[in-house]
């Protein structure tokens, strides 16, 4: 087991180095003058000389790559956004909570309903309910995230306005509802600017977490309502994929001999399908769930823009619009690294779930 984990982890190292190289190369490949690309067309020669010198852009490329590696790996420094005048790392830490909450809400939605639809579809295989579910899945995979987001806004915030199904079209939480950070509620005195304060601030930016542990139910409920539409928009494609995989995997398992044995010895049908069938059919589903988490981060860019959530995606969108290369570079790096790490975790969890893998 340990050997398997070590081998799998070693395999991720060259890919991570490759990712660092690609993100490094991206910034050097910007056509034209890097200084004017960052500082704008009106930067004078003196300012540009100083800029090139300060950022080490006059050094040979291998030296620059070495400096970049040191900056990232040792200092955890992703450079400074010229638009905000702040370190990119700070911006990411500040806006990460929204994206993480969105990605997890979407994942829970997709996994829960995806598995239910998949099981129903496989159990009543080839019935009209199966055909309808699979048609829905085909449609679900085909609707682009940004179209679905806008459609949901239209339906739930306009057509269903004044009904009990109405949902807010944008924002993370209604600003009228007070949502003080938990450390203030608990009366902690924390000095601003310290690492401890940054950490508490980071935690309190998770709106679900903050409202939950301060028993602020009104704000919690409001936050849930704000999250439903974005989570459905991002989660629909993974939901459809998970439903399809669950269906085909469960169909295969249900045709095996031990299922017939379980039925023959008189087990209740629910027990046969859920305990014996589903628990063995879930392996491929786990892989897909892990893979989709990476794509959720990509979907978050489009969704956050539409639903006006200030997370990483919205930040990236604004950075693209204002040509803030440093943010784009840092964001790409963070997403790719988390994507690789998630895949690594999935592969390792796979080994825990399936003894055949760790023994081979």
């Amino acid at each position: 087991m340990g050997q398997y984990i070590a081998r799998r982890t070693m395999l991720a190292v060259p890919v991570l180095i490759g990712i660092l190289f690609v993100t490094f190369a991206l910034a050097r490949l910007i056509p034209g003058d890097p200084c004017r690309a960052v500082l704008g067309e009106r930067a004078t020669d003196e300012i540009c000389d100083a800029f090139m010198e300060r950022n080490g852009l006059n050094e040979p490329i291998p030296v620059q790559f070495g400096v970049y590696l040191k900056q990232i790996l040792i200092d955890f420094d992703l450079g400074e956004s010229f638009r905000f005048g702040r370190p990119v790392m700070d911006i990411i830490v500040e806006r990460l909570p929204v994206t993480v909450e969105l990605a997890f809400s979407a994942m829970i939605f997709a996994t829960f309903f995806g598995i239910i639809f998949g099981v129903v579809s496989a159990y009543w295989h080839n019935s009209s309910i199966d055909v309808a579910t699979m048609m829905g899945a085909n449609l679900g995979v085909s609707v682009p995230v940004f179209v679905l987001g806008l459609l949901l806004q239209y339906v739930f915030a306009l057509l269903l306005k004044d009904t009990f199904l109405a949902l807010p079209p944008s924002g993370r939480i209604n600003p009228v509802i007070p949502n003080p950070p938990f450390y203030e509620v608990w009366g902690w005195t924390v000095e601003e600017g310290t690492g401890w304060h940054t950490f508490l601030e980071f935690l309190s930016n998770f709106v679900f977490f903050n409202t939950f542990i301060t028993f602020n139910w009104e704000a919690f409920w409001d936050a849930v309502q704000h999250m439903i539409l974005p989570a459905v928009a991002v989660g629909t494609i993974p939901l459809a994929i998970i439903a399809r995989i669950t269906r085909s995997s469960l169909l295969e398992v249900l045709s095996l001999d031990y299922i017939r044995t379980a039925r023959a010895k008189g087990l209740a049908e629910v027990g046969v399908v859920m305990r014996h069938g589903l628990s063995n059919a879930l392996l491929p589903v786990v892989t897909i769930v892990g893979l989709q988490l990476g794509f959720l981060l990509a979907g978050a860019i489009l969704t956050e823009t539409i639903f006006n959530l200030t997370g990483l995606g919205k930040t990236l969108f604004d950075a693209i619009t204002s040509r803030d290369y440093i943010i784009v570079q840092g964001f790409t790096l963070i997403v790719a690294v988390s994507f690789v790490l998630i895949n690594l975790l999935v592969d390792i969890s796979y080994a825990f779930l399936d003894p055949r893998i760790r023994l081979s």
Partner: protein
Amino acid sequence: MATADSTLSNAPALLKTKEPSSLFKDAWRHLIQKRSAVVGMTILAILAVVAVLAPVIAPFDPEQQLIGKEDGIKKRSGPCIHMLGCPEEQPQHIFGVDANFRDFFSRVLYGARLSLVVGFASVTIAIVTGTILGSLAGFLGGWVDNLIMRLMDVLLAFPALILAIAIVTVLGPGLINALIAISIVTIPAYARVIRSSVLTVKEQDYVLAGRSIGVPQFRILTRDVLPNAITPLIVQGTLGIGTAIVEVAALSFLGLGAQPPTPEWGLMISAERNQIFTAPYLVLIPGICIALVVLGFNLLGDGLQDALNPRLNRR
């Protein structure tokens, strides 16, 4: 007696051997039996007709601003179809008018053209590049294989849209650059498919035979190895066109793809997305169009996957 007669007369028919049929003939037969694939093909056929005939069907130039050209034209006025009871004195605009006084129906029609071209072009670029890289890797092996495939691993480590965004940010926004970026991020999928096919075919006896009588390497690759790898490519490519269309539309939506006044669906949605509550048709119509095209390619791709798989469907 009658039974004996019919058995006898049937005998030659039973002995008759099945007519030889090619893989593609078989595949076609299976494909048109599958309802979902037929639905997909129908959607795509309609779309192709619309795309080709766009200049004939469209009542207006998609980029022409009609202000001053037409009496009483209103910004973002809703759909007006005479056959459905819209008063005759109002000018007919089937999908309404957009914020720049352009006929939205004409723009949507031309959008079909652009989407199909973009989808096919980016997948073609990706397949050609992927085939070259994958066959080199599989055929030559050794360090070439290692180098190429590790590079592909790195590309696969990025979620496709994120890497495409980064590439277009570097190249500069524009439809062509968006198309190139989408091609680059999809190359690894094709390279892998080709490489694994090449590896399998390379060990076959007929390749060895060819080699022993001195057929040049390149000829073996193009004549013996690649044709055998084409089936998975067709499936992957069909599904890939749908994905490419969505991703180029997403890049245009983010302002990185097509630039105004190009009639591109993603860009049209992006331009009017804040009008979702006041003029929803300007957002939802191009949105539904994108979804339909993608659905068409997905259904066809799934159908092809079953139809071209010799292990399934052989009865």
